[in-house]
C-alpha cells in the first residue's frame, strides 16, 4: 500500500539530489518497496503509449522467434522443471537422471517448481523426469512463453526508471534499449535462459538504490544472489556501498538500526533460500553443485576477456617459437595440444606460465579493491553504479572460466550510465558493440545468423545515434582525435569481421581443405578471431571506464 507514495517521493528527491543520504532515512521509514495490488494497478495505468508500443511490438517479435534455434540450455531448464516437479526437495540437488543437473541456487529451483505446475496441466510429459530431450511444440511454446512473461519484471523495472529520472526523454531511450537489448534477445529468446527476469531484479535493486531505499536494494540483491550466483561478481560493490552509505553515517559512525535491519533482511533471504537444505544437511552437496571448480580457464569459445588475449598471445608465441626455434623458450608439450584444440577442458599454455584459479582470484580482487576504495570515498548513486559496472567488468575480465554471456553483467549497468557524457557514451558504445558481437557465436545456425545481425544493427541504429546527438563533444586534443579515429575504425572493423565469419565456411571448403586436414584447427579460426577482436575492444573499454571512474568522479 505504501509503495506508491514511496516511489513518488523518492522520484522527487532524486531530482533534488542524487544519492542524498538524508532522504534515504525518510524513504526507508515510509515503507515497503514490495509491489502491492495498488501499485501494480498504478503501474498499469501509468504506461505511456510509447511503452505499450515497445511492449507489444517486442512481444510480437519474440513470439515469432518461438521456432528458432534452441541451445541445450532449453533442455537444461526443461529438466529442472521435471526435477522440481517430480522429486521431493531433498532429491533436487542429488538427481543425476539427466546430465544437466540442477546447479542454480535454491530460489531458481523454487522458481522452476512454480513454473512446473502450469506445465503439468499443459502437457504432463514436460515434467516427466525420464522424458529427456523432449521437444514437442507444447514444451517449446510453454517455456518460451515463460521467458516472455517473466521478462516483464525487467520491463517493469526499466519502466520505473523513467519515472523520477532527471532526464526522462533520455532515460526512455535507455530503458527501451535495455528492454530490447540484443543480448537478452540472443541469450533469452533464442539461446534460452531467464536473464531478462533476473536482470529485472537487479535493475529493480539498482532503482531502489537510486530512489534512496537502500534496505530494499540490499534485500533485492540478496534475493537475486539466490536466483543465480553469478551475480556475486557484483556483490563487492553492493557490500561497500550499502555499508558506507546505509550502515554508516556520513561522519563514519555506525548506525546500528540500519545495520541490523539490513543484516536481518539479508540473513532472512538466505534462510528462506538455503534453510531447507541446511536442515537436511545438504549444504555441502548444494555448494559443490553451484561451484564446480573442475573446469578450465577458458570456455570452449573463449569469452572475450583478458585471458583470451593471453591465450591468443600464447598461440602466437608458440607459432613463432616453432617457426624460428627460439632458444630459451620452454614449450609445454601438453600445451601445444590444448591450445590447438580449444575444446572444453583445462587450458594449458604452451609458452607462457600457466594460470591457476588463485591467480585469477588475486588479480580480480586487486582491481576491485581499487574501485571499492574509490566507492568508499564517494558513496553516491552514480559512483555506485560505475563501481558496480567495474566490479562486474573486472570479474568478467579476469575471472576463472568466464562465460561469454556474463558480459551482460557489464552491459546492463553500463547502459544506465550511457547518457552521462561523451566519455561514458563512447565506452558504452565500444563495450556494447564488442559485447553483443561476442555473443553472436552462441548461434551458429544460418537462419539465426541473419536474425542476430539484423536485430543488433537495428538496435544499435535506434539507440546509439540519439544518445550520441545529445552528448557529443569534439575531441579536445590530438591524442584524443587519434583515439577517436581508432575507436571508430575498430567499430567499423566488426563489419569486416562478420563478413569473414560468414564467408569462412565457403572459403575453407574450397581453399583450405588441405590445411584443415593437416592441423584440424582451422574451423576454430573464426571463433578465435571473434573472441580476440572483441576482447581487444572490451579490454580497452574496461581501461577507459576505470580511468573515467578513478579520475572524473
Amino acid at each position, binding site marked *: 500500500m505504501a509503495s506508491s507514495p514511496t516511489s513518488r517521493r523518492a522520484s522527487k528527491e532524486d531530482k533534488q539530489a542524487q544519492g542524498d543520504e538524508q532522504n534515504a532515512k525518510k524513504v526507508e521509514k515510509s515503507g515497503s518497496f514490495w509491489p502491492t495490488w495498488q501499485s501494480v494497478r498504478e503501474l498499469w495505468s501509468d504506461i505511456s503509449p510509447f511503452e505499450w*508500443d515497445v511492449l*507489444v*511490438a517486442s512481444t510480437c517479435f519474440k513470439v515469432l522467434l518461438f521456432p528458432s534455434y534452441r541451445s541445450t540450455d532449453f533442455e537444461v531448464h526443461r529438466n529442472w522443471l521435471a526435477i522440481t516437479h517430480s522429486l521431493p526437495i531433498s532429491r533436487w540437488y542429488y538427481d543425476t537422471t539427466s546430465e544437466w543437473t540442477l546447479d542454480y541456487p535454491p530460489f531458481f529451483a523454487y522458481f522452476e517448481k512454480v513454473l512446473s505446475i502450469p506445465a503439468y496441466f499443459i502437457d504432463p510429459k514436460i515434467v516427466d523426469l525420464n522424458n529427456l530431450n523432449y521437444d514437442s511444440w507444447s514444451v517449446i511454446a510453454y517455456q518460451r512463453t515463460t521467458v516472455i512473461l517473466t521478462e516483464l519484471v525487467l520491463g517493469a523495472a526499466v519502466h520505473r526508471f523513467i519515472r523520477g529520472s532527471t532526464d526522462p526523454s533520455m532515460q526512455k531511450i535507455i530503458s527501451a534499449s535495455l528492454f530490447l537489448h540484443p543480448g537478452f534477445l540472443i541469450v533469452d529468446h533464442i539461446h534460452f535462459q531467464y536473464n531478462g527476469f533476473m536482470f529485472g531484479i537487479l535493475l529493480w535493486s539498482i532503482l531502489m538504490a537510486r530512489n534512496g531505499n537502500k534496505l530494499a536494494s540490499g534485500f533485492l540483491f540478496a534475493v537475486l544472489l539466490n536466483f543465480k550466483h553469478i551475480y556475486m561478481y557484483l556483490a563487492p560493490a553492493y557490500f561497500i556501498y550499502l555499508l558506507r552509505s546505509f550502515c554508516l553515517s556520513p561522519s563514519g559512525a555506525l548506525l546500528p538500526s540500519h545495520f541490523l535491519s539490513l543484516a536481518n533482511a539479508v540473513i532472512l533471504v538466505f534462510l528462506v533460500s538455503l534453510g531447507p537444505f541446511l536442515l537436511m544437511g545438504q549444504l555441502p552437496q548444494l555448494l559443490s553443485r553451484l561451484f564446480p571448480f573442475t573446469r578450465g580457464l577458458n570456455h570452449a569459445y573463449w569469452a572475450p576477456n583478458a585471458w583470451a588475449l593471453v591465450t591468443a598471445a600464447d598461440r602466437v608465441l608458440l607459432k613463432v617459437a616453432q617457426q624460428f626455434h627460439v632458444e630459451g623458450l620452454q614449450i609445454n608439450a601438453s600445451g601445444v595440444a590444448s591450445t590447438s584444440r580449444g575444446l572444453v577442458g583445462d587450458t594449458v599454455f604452451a609458452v607462457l606460465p600457466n594460470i591457476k584459479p588463485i591467480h585469477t582470484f588475486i588479480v580480480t580482487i586487486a582491481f576491485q579493491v581499487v574501485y571499492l576504495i574509490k566507492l568508499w570515498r564517494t558513496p553516491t548513486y552514480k559512483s555506485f553504479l560505475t563501481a558496480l559496472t567495474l566490479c562486474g567488468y573486472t570479474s568478467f575480465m579476469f575471472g576463472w572460466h568466464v562465460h561469454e554471456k556474463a558480459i551482460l553483467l557489464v552491459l546492463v549497468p553500463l547502459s544506465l550510465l550511457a547518457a552521462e557524457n561523451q566519455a561514458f557514451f563512447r565506452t558504452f558504445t565500444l563495450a556494447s558493440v564488442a559485447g553483443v558481437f561476442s555473443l553472436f557465436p552462441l548461434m551458429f545456425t*544460418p*537462419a539465426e545468423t541473419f*536474425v542476430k545481425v*539484423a536485430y543488433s544493427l537495428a538496435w544499435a*541504429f535506434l539507440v546509439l545515434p*540519439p544518445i550520441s546527438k545529445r552528448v557529443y563533444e569534439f575531441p579536445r586534443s590530438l591524442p584524443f582525435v587519434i583515439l577517436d579515429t581508432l575507436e571508430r575504425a575498430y567499430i567499423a572493423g566488426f563489419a569486416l569481421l562478420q563478413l569473414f565469419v560468414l564467408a569462412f565456411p565457403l572459403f575453407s571448403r574450397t581453399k583450405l581443405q588441405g590445411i584443415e586436414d593437416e592441423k584440424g584447427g582451422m574451423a576454430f579460426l573464426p571463433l578465435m578471431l571473434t573472441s580476440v577482436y572483441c576482447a581487444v575492444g572490451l579490454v580497452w573499454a574496461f581501461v577507459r571506464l576505470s580511468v573515467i571512474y578513478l579520475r572524473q568522479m
Partner: protein
Amino acid sequence: MDEIYSMMPQASSSSPRAARLRKTPTTSRDTLHTFPERGQPPRLKTPTLFPRSPSIGIRSNTSDTDHSEIIAPIPRKHMTIQRNESQHWLGSPPLSPVSTVSRALSPASSTFLDTANPRGLRRHTQSFSSLLEHDKPASGSIASSVPRARPPAENKNEETSPARRWARWIHKQGLKQLAIPLILLVSTLVRWCIGLGSYSGQGTPIMFGDYEAQRHWMELTIHLPFRQWYTYDLPYWGLDYPPLTAYVSWLCGIVGSWIDPTWFALYTSRGIETPGSKVYMRATVVFFDLLVYIPSVILFTHTWQSNRSSRTQHVALLTLLFQPALLLIDFGHFQYNSVMLGFTLLAIDLFAKGQDVLGAICFVLSLGFKQMALYYAPAIGSYLLAKCLCLGFVEGSRLFIRLAIVTSISFVILFLPWLPPFAPIPSILAPISRIFPFARGLFEDKVANFWCASNIVFKWRLWLSRDTLVKLSAVLTALGFFPSVTGLLYHGYQVGASEKLSKKETSSNAPPVPILPLLPYALLASSMSFFLFSFQVHEKTILVPLLPLTLLVSGSSPSSFTFQLGVLVNNVAVFSMWPLLQRDGLALQYFAVTLLWNRLIGYNPLKYKPGTLVHYIPLVIYAACFTLHVLETLIPPPARLPDIYPVLNVLISTPVFAFTWLWAIKRGIEVGWAIGGLGHAQASSPSSSSALAASRSKQSVDGQGANGSERAVKSAVEAAGLGLGAPSVDRAAGLRTRSLGYAQARRASSALRDPF
C-alpha cells in the same frame, strides 16, 4: 518544405474561427475580434492579423511572430482545417471526433469526398479548438517549447499510431535519413522471423505443399530443356505459372545448386527438408521481395504521396510493408506473391509518373510472373485506354499504338522459348493450358467467394455443367468489373473532351492525368469481382484485391471510413486464410503478425465510440471471428460436419469482401463524378478575384448542396489562400495536386494567377 510548414499554424489557429463563422455567418468580423479572448494568449496571436476576408485570412498571413509556433505539430492541424472546409457536403460523420491526418490517397478523394455532416463537423472543430487551447498556454513564446507541449495533448486524444509516433520521434532526433533504412531492416527482419516457422506442406510426404511446388520448379527448370518445362511429370507439381516464374525458378535453382547440389538434384531431391535448403528457399523469397516489392512500395510513397511530409510517407511505408496477409502467405506459407504484386505496384507508380509504356511493361512482367495479375487487367487496360482517350485523337492514338506494340513484344519475349523460331507452334499450348486450368473445379478448398458461400444452399456443381459454370462465372465477373471499367473510360473520354475546350487557355506543361485517382478503386473493384465470381479461386488470391485496398489505407487518416474499412478487410482476409495457415502450423505467426500490424497503424476497433448501428458492424464481425477461434479450440467439429469451421469462416468473410467490392464501385463513381464535375465547372465559371472566391466560399461553407462550380471555387480559394505571390500559388497548388495527378485544381490556380 519550410515554406509550407510556415503556413500551417495560421491555418490551424484559424480553424476555430472558421467553426464560429459557420455558426454565425453574418457577423464574421465581430467573431474575429472576439476570437482571441477565447483563451488565446495575445502575444502569440494578435487580433490585428485577422481582419481580412475569412477564407483568405485563413491561410495568407505569414508574419514572423507566427513562426514561433510552427515547428512540430503542424501538418496534422493543417489537415484538420482542410477537412473542416471540405467535409460539409457529404454524408456520414467522421468516426472519431478529432482527425489527425485526414487526406485519403488522393486529394480528390479527401478534398471532395470525405464525409461529415454539419453536426459532426461542429463536434470536430470544437474538440479541435479545445485541443488548440490546451496546447497554447503551455507552448510559451519560444519555438522549442512547442514540441514539449504536445505530448499531453496527444495522450489525451490518443489519435497517434505507433508508426506515427516513431516517425515523429526519429525526425525529432534528426535521424530522418535513417528512417527508411531502419524500416527496411526491421521489416526484413520480421519477414525472416516469420520464415523461421514451418511452411506449407512441411513434413507431409508424398505431395507436400506449395513450398515443395516452388522447389520442384527450381529442380526441373535447371535440369530440363525449355520444351519440357510445362510437360514434365505433371501430377507431381507440374509447372503451372507463367514463364517469368519459370525463369526466376531457374535462376534460384542455379544459384542453389552452386551452394549445395543436393538441394535441387533431379528426382532425388523431392521433399528435401534440410535446414540449409529451407534457409536458402526462404532467402530467395526475401531477396525477391527486397528486389521488387519493397522498392515499388517506396516508389509508391514517393510518387503517390509526394505532397505529404516525409513523416507521413514513412508511416505509409510501414503500413504497407507490415501488411499481415502478404507477410504470412509469402514468408510463412511460402509463395512469391510479392513479386507479382510488386510489378503491378511498380506499373501503378510509373503510371503516376506518366511513364505509361514502362508501366505497361511492368504489368506484363507481373502477368508473366503469376496469372493472378489478370485480376487487375481490366482496370489497368481500361486506364491505359482512358489515358489515350484523354490525350485526344492524335496523341492518344500514338500512345495506344506504342502501348500495343510494346505489350505484344513483351509477351512474345516472355514466351519466346515456346514460339516458332525455337519451337513448333503447337508447343505454345502447353504453357497456356497449364496456366489457365479450366479443367479444375469451380473452387478449391473453402474460399470466401460467391460460389463457395452460395454453394452451401445451392449445389452449383450438381445443377450445372462445368462449361456452363465457366461461362456463368465469366459473365458474373465481367459484370462485376463493368462499372469501374466503363467509369474509367467515360471519364477519360470526358476529360479528353473538356481538354479540347480549354486547350487555348491552359498552358499544358504535361499535366498529370486527372483520371489517376480512379485507378486504385478500379483495381480494387476489378480484382475483387474476380475474387468473388471467377472460376478456380484460391483463398490466397485475396492478396490481389488487398493490394489496392492497402494502398488506399496507407494514404488515409485513421478516422476515415477508407481506413476503417481497409483495416477491417485486411484483418478479415487474414482470418479467411486461417484454415490454410493453421494447416501450415503458422497459428502463432498469424496472431503475432496481425496484432503487430494493427498496433503499428494504431487500429483498435474498440477505441472508437460507436455512434450509430453501422459502427457496430465491425465489432460484430470481430466478435464472430473471435468466437469462431474460441469454438474451434474448445470443441472439435461434429462428425457429420467436419468442415463446419471453414464453412463458417467463409460465411463470415464473404459478405465483407462483397461489401468491399460494392464500396469500391461506389467510390469509383464518386471520385469520377468529382473529376467530371470539376472539369465542367472550371470551364463554366473561372473565378476572377479572390474576393469573389471568398464570398462564394463562405456560401459553400454554409453547406448547402455541392455543385461543380462551388467546388471549383473552393479549390481555387484553397490554392490562392496558401500563398500570396504567384510562385507560392503555384507551389501551394502543387502541394495538394501535383503528385496525385489532380490537374484541375492546378489549372484553377493558374486561372487565378492573372488577377494576382
